[in-house]
C-alpha cells in the first residue's frame, strides 16, 4: 500500500515537475509582455480574442462586440502588471469581459438593439440572429458556454482551459444548455 502511495506521489510530483518545466504558452507570453515584448501581447490577443468575443456576444448587442473586444484587450494590456498568476490570464480576461458587459448595460439602459435589424441581411444571417437571441434568453451559465461552443467553435476542454471553469461544469452547462436550446428551437418551429 505504501509503495502504491509512493508511486502515486512520485507520479503527481513528476507531473507537477513536468508542468513547471514547461509553462503554458500564456505564462511565457505574459512574462514576455511584462518585459516589454509587444508582439507577445499580439499573440495573446490572437489566442484569446475568440473567447472574449464569445463572452460578449452572449451578453451585448452584436454591433458593439468588436469595439468592446478591442477596448478589453487595451485595458488588459495596461493592467497586465496587476495579474498575479500569469497562468490565469484566460480567467482574468474573461472576468474583465463579463464586467465590461455589465458596465455596458448599466450605462446604456435605454439602448435598444436596432442596429442589426436596420442592416440588410440575408436569410441565413437572420436565422443566426434568431438562434443567438434564443441562446441569450437562456440562463447565464448556459449561454456563454453554448456561444463559445456553437459560435466560436471551441471544444468543451478548450472552454474549460480558457475560462478557468472545471471540465465537469462546462460539460454540464453544455448538456443542459443544449437541451434547453433544443426545446426552444422545437417551440419556434412548432409556430
Amino acid at each position, binding site marked *: 500500500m505504501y509503495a502504491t502511495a509512493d508511486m502515486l506521489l512520485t507520479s503527481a510530483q513528476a507531473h507537477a515537475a513536468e508542468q513547471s518545466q514547461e509553462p503554458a504558452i500564456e505564462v511565457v507570453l505574459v512574462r514576455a509582455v511584462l518585459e516589454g515584448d509587444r508582439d507577445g501581447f499580439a499573440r495573446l490577443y490572437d489566442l484569446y480574442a475568440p473567447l472574449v468575443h464569445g463572452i460578449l456576444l452572449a451578453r451585448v448587442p452584436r454591433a458593439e462586440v468588436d469595439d468592446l473586444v*478591442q477596448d478589453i*484587450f487595451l485595458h488588459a494590456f495596461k493592467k497586465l502588471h496587476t495579474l498575479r498568476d500569469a497562468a490565469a490570464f484566460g480567467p482574468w480576461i474573461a472576468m474583465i469581459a463579463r464586467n465590461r458587459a455589465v458596465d455596458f448595460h448599466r450605462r446604456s439602459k435605454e439602448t435598444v438593439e436596432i442596429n442589426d435589424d436596420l442592416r440588410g441581411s440575408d436569410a441565413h444571417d437572420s436565422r443566426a440572429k434568431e*438562434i443567438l437571441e434564443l441562446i441569450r434568453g437562456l440562463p447565464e451559465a448556459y449561454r456563454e458556454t453554448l456561444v463559445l461552443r*456553437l459560435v466560436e467553435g471551441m*471544444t468543451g*476542454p478548450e472552454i474549460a482551459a480558457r475560462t478557468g471553469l472545471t471540465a465537469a461544469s462546462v460539460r454540464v452547462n*453544455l448538456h443542459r444548455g443544449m437541451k434547453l436550446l433544443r426545446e426552444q428551437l422545437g417551440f419556434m418551429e412548432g409556430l
Partner: protein
Amino acid sequence: MNDDYLWDKTGQPDPEIQQLEQILGTLRYQPKPLVIPRRNYFPWLAIAASLLLALLAGGIWLRVRSHNEAPPQQARIETPKPVQAPQAPRNESALNPPLPPSKRIHKPRSASSVLPKAEREEALMAKEQLMLALRLTTQKLHLVHIKTQHKVG
C-alpha cells in the same frame, strides 16, 4: 443525443448540432489586428526642455547680474588745489593741445561694457553656449514633434 460530439467534437456527429454550428458560425469572431497606441512622450519632453531652458536662463542671468554689480565705491579725497590768480586770456588752442588718445575723457558706458576683458569673454562664451543649447533643444523638439505626428498619422 451524442454527448461526445457536443463535448469535444469526437464520436458520431450530431446533425442538429452541426447545423447549428453552420448557422451560428457566421457570427464567429473575425480576426482583426489589435492597435496598441504607443506612448506619447512629447508633452513630457516639452516640459523637460522648458524646465532645462528656464534653469539655464536663470543661471546665466544670475551670473551676469553678479558680475555687473559694481564694487563698493570709495570716497575719493582730493586735496584742493591752490587757487591761482586770474591770468590774462591766452590763445587756448595754442596753450591746450589735444590730449593723446589714451588720456581722452570717455563718457560712462553701460554696465556690460565696463567688464574686464576676461569676464567679458567668459560672458560671451556663456551666451554662445546658451544659444547652442537653445538651438539643440529646438531641433530635438522639432524631431520629436515630427516623429509623434508620423506615428499618430
